[in-house]
């Protein structure tokens, strides 16, 4: 008689549902997962080691490339760690700008997540919808930093420059002209804040659209309800943070509990789930987008009324203005030293954490007093979440692996670093 063997399946690294370069070794008994062994590191670039070989400011750009769908939140943790070590206070306007862009980033991230999660589970339309809205937010990124994704906008001491007073217009081409062109430019007549206000007025109805497609959708519920259930105790043990933790019913949000930037000055609520399954985490993230929308609204109101500096006046860490640099010897020396050598950070260590869209993103910096960090360690939420993959998928069907990967909101830039 022939003996039955378990089947070993190599899932990824080049699989559309692997969200990048996840290689999963799955041991299957029929269609049931017996063992799952994620192999990561295919995108390992040694960001932390590279950061140790560069002056502090030159690594901000690397942070964008960690979790490349929530760029500015990564920067935020890194610059906060530097600011802690330097004992630097940042202008209040910079705090509000950071809050504003952290929330823009959160929406960007969650849109990407809902798009790909939906696509993985068979909801194609949603992907197109989500990318349509992402486009506007990328334009906001572009308006402040000149780059649609890798902004390098946050700097130790504040943000690089103030919000622009006008938006770039869409130019006429063979494909965009006439009515299309007017529609695309309709929101772009005022400042960036006006543009974002148009967006947030429109966005809740867009979230309603997504919810119409999914929330009561029978197929969606069949694919997500009761899948990947994590109890609150296990979620803590496994190191879950962010929506993964809140989906299990633990109300923990760093924005509320350990407020940074201007989060103590805005009103918002923290949604939590009940059952800890994929569906609850979906609901949590959808509500987070609505809350982010409201935070952006409050930031816009505040930023309109309160002009002021956006970066510290300490010229050891922030560049002087261009005019000062050209007229004043001292400023020119500061400018030269800052961009060639950087600044020395007092010896010490600091751990700064932000509520990143995926969970807690922490930056642990150790300085020995040099112009380069002695050690940088980045705590990525996705790394911890993925380590719980085996526990979450064990006993589920093969198709549910895709749902769990989706619900964990995996991005390999931050996991592999």
């Amino acid at each position, binding site marked *: 008689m022939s003996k039955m063997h378990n089947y070993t399946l190599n899932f990824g690294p080049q699989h559309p549902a692997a969200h990048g370069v996840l290689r999963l070794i799955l041991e299957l008994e029929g269609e049931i997962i017996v063992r799952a062994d994620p192999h990561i590191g295919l995108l390992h670039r040694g960001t*932390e080691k590279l950061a140790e*070989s560069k002056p502090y400011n030159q690594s901000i750009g690397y942070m964008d490339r960690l979790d490349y769908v929530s760029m500015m939140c990564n920067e935020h943790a890194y610059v906060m760690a530097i600011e802690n070590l330097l004992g630097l206070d940042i202008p209040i306007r910079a705090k509000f700008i950071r809050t504003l862009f952290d929330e823009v980033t959160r929406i960007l991230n969650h849109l990407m997540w809902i798009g790909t999660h939906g696509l993985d589970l068979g909801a194609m339309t949603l992907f197109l919808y989500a990318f349509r809205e992402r486009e506007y937010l990328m334009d906001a990124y572009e308006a402040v930093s000149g780059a649609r994704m890798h902004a390098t906008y946050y700097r130790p001491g504040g943000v690089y420059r103030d919000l622009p007073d006008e938006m770039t217009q869409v130019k006429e081409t063979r494909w965009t002209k006439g009515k299309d062109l007017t529609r695309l430019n309709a929101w772009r007549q005022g400042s960036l804040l006006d543009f974002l206000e148009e967006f947030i007025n429109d966005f809740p109805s867009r979230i309603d659209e997504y919810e119409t497609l999914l929330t009561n959708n029978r197929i969606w519920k069949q694919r997500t309800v009761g899948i990947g259930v994590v109890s609150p105790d296990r979620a803590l*043990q496994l190191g879950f943070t962010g929506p993964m933790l809140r989906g299990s019913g633990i109300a923990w949000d760093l924005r509320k509990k350990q407020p940074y930037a201007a989060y103590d000055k805005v009103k918002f609520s923290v949604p939590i789930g009940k059952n800890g399954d994929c569906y609850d985490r979906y609901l949590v993230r959808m509500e987070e987008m609505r809350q982010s929308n409201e935070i952006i609204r409050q930031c816009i109101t505040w930023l309109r009324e309160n002009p002021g500096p956006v970066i510290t006046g300490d010229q050891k860490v922030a560049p002087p203005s261009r005019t000062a640099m050209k007229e004043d010897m001292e400023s020119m020396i500061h400018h030269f030293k800052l961009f060639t050598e950087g600044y020395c950070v007092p010896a010490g260590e600091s751990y700064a954490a932000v509520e990143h869209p995926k969970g807690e993103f922490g930056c642990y910096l150790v300085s020995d007093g040099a*112009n*380069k960090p002695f050690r940088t360690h980045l705590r990525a939420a996705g790394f911890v979440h993925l*380590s719980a993959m085996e526990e979450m998928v064990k006993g589920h069907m093969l198709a549910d692996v895709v749902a769990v990967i989706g619900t964990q909101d995996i991005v390999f830039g931050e996991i592999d670093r």
Partner: protein
Amino acid sequence: MAKQKSQFVSQLEAFFSADRLVSITDTSDMVTLEISPEHWLDVARDLRDQDEFSFTQLSDLCGMDYLSWGQSEWATDTASNRGFSRAVSGEGAGRFDWSQRPQVVFDRDNEYGHPGRFAVVVHLISMEHNRRIRIRCFAADDVMPIIPSLVDTWNSANWYEREAFDLFGIAFEGHPDLRRILTDYGFVGHPFRKDFPLIGNVTVRYDESQGRVVYEPVEIEPRVLVPRVIRDDSRQHALADEATEDGNS
């Protein structure tokens, strides 16, 4: 805030007898405990289980290599009879390749200001008390660093310890599955050690004629664009003086 922290420090001092902790420091962002490898596990367990601490979650664990601590490549405050330092030499990871990597022995007698070369740094969080703590453990041996594994205390330590093993070569005693995690299959060396070259060791490409992937020595030249420099900043002295004055008064 500062008062609350000092209360926490006295709580820690009261609970842990002096032989279980090497030191308690109240650094600017959080309290840091240094623990010897022998007490690493039982102190961790108490930090998790005692109600006054209840650090239920391990948020971060990372390896550290203290080799070359405080070394700069540019002497800025002295000059020899041949002029000022040109900042072109040094032993930073960007300055050598695999064959020239420094064969240095870590000097434990305070040359680098740390009791050992390798350490593990853990950040814990207590959601109940809304508090973080940093705990650190120096490995007893610099050649074969071994530290007990925290996986049984906090399951989230699993991959972090694999990462520290992969990047620093720190072995975690009692870890259920200590494999490399981030580097390539069959990788040689521990890349985040300070004596591992920044440019790496081998490069990989697909070879048409052989019809397979081949490994070759890297072709990049080691180079450093900005020298590492440690400057004596008088403003920091002023800050430090202020801090001690506050402490005395």
